[in-house]
């Protein structure tokens, strides 16, 4: 009961509510911008390397390596590599972009490999040039596999942003350092709940986006229902 009182008191302060809104907005920015950049980067690398076997191996090993580096270590090392200030939010954006791209490389390559070769051949026969074929035929068909990877990356980004609070840029993570310093449960609990909610909402949006991007799956769905019924 006393904890609920504490929570109520925390939320009744207009100052705190305002702080919550700005931290949620910052958290979205820090998690979602790298998600978009990482997807673009992974697709770009996938496009360049999918037909070159040796390059592909090198890129996959590099991706694995990046993904192995602990988040806090990556956050503090990036400024000295790209020359930014240590408290700059760009560091978190760059680090999470790298993680997203590293995580998505394999799904992108697998998804592109899974496009049936006769579909690609038909597109070529209809006069599609490689670039147009890639963006209008191969990439859309790769969306279902890619979407699964993007969902994992979005959850992982949203949870990792908070670690940035240790270098002064952390969205909702600031609530954790704040609660720790003042030995105060409310901001920590609110921070955890908001992070989980944010992850859930973004995940649902991604599921929706996947559906919009793959209308042919929906067309096939009623048939499947009839078969199982």
């Amino acid at each position, binding site marked *: 009961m006393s904890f609920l009182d504490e929570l109520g008191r925390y939320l009744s302060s207009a100052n705190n509510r305002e702080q919550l809104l700005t931290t949620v907005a910052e958290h979205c920015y820090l998690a979602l911008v790298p998600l978009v950049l990482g997807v673009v980067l992974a697709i770009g690398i996938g496009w360049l390397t999918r037909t070159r076997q040796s390059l592909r191996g090198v890129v996959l090993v590099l991706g694995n*390596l990046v*993904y*192995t*580096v*602990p*988040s*806090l*270590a*990556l956050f*503090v*090392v990036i400024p*000295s590599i790209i020359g930014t200030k*240590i408290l700059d939010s760009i560091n978190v954006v760059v680090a999470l972009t790298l993680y997203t791209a590293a995580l998505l490389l394999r799904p992108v390559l697998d998804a592109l*490999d899974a496009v049936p*070769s006769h579909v690609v051949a038909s597109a070529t026969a209809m006069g599609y040039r490689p670039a147009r074929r890639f963006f209008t035929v191969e990439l859309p068909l790769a969306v279902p596999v890619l979407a699964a990877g993007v969902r*994992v990356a979005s*959850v*992982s980004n*949203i*949870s990792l*942003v*908070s*670690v940035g*609070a*240790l*270098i002064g840029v*952390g969205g*909702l*993570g600031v*609530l*954790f*350092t704040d*609660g*720790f310093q003042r*030995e*105060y*449960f409310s901001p*920590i*609990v609110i*921070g*955890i709940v908001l*992070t*989980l909610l944010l*992850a*859930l909402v973004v995940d649902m949006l991604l599921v929706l986006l996947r559906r919009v991007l793959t209308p042919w799956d929906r067309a096939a769905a009623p048939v499947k229902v009839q078969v199982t019924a």
Partner: protein
Amino acid sequence: MITEIVNWFSDSANWQGPDGVPTRLLEHLGYVALALVIAAAIAIPVGLFVGHTGSGGLLLVGAGNAVRALPTLGLVTFLFLLFTDSTVAAIIGLIVLAVPPILAGTYAGLQAVDRYVVDAAVGVGMRGWQRLWQVEVPISLPLVIGGVRNAVLQLVATAAVAAYVGLGGLGRFLLDGLAILDYGEVAAGAVLTALLAIVLDVLLATAQRVLTPRGVRLAQADVRGGTKEVAA
């Protein structure tokens, strides 16, 4: 930056006493090992049970996803306020984060066992336990170790973050260096943490290869060869 790191590493004061590299490295390894053993003792039996009987799989996958979204810093600070002891709080936090990947790996491993193989095991008269230990566990071992690999990466990273609530280990170099803006110390801590993660991952990858039964390796090679033929 390189000179700062080299200077830091070549200073003999950084290699001795309770703040020295060997002590901090061993501390970090100790937390990771302790949390890993406890997490595996919880996750592997549960994963085997769920995978073998096939009940509760959906619940398990959902819970695993929820924990993946849990912010590590939030969990660690929350547990610290609850237990007011940094080591206890950090170890519990580490266990909570290490259980889901091992559970997911074990469950996925058993799910990946071909139904026909299990049928054949029943056909030759194997009982439940024999089927589990002699057929399902060896075949799923690569995926189980894959889960352990994910857990170890998570543990090394989170143990560094837990330095914030006062845990020892390599995270100390990162945070203490940041506090006094000693960039050499911060970068050295980052390099050590990253190296530890990479070395442990390579060791586990080797274990994954060595412990994969010969039959499973042959089957995988067969599948790979098969897809290559189709693609060609």
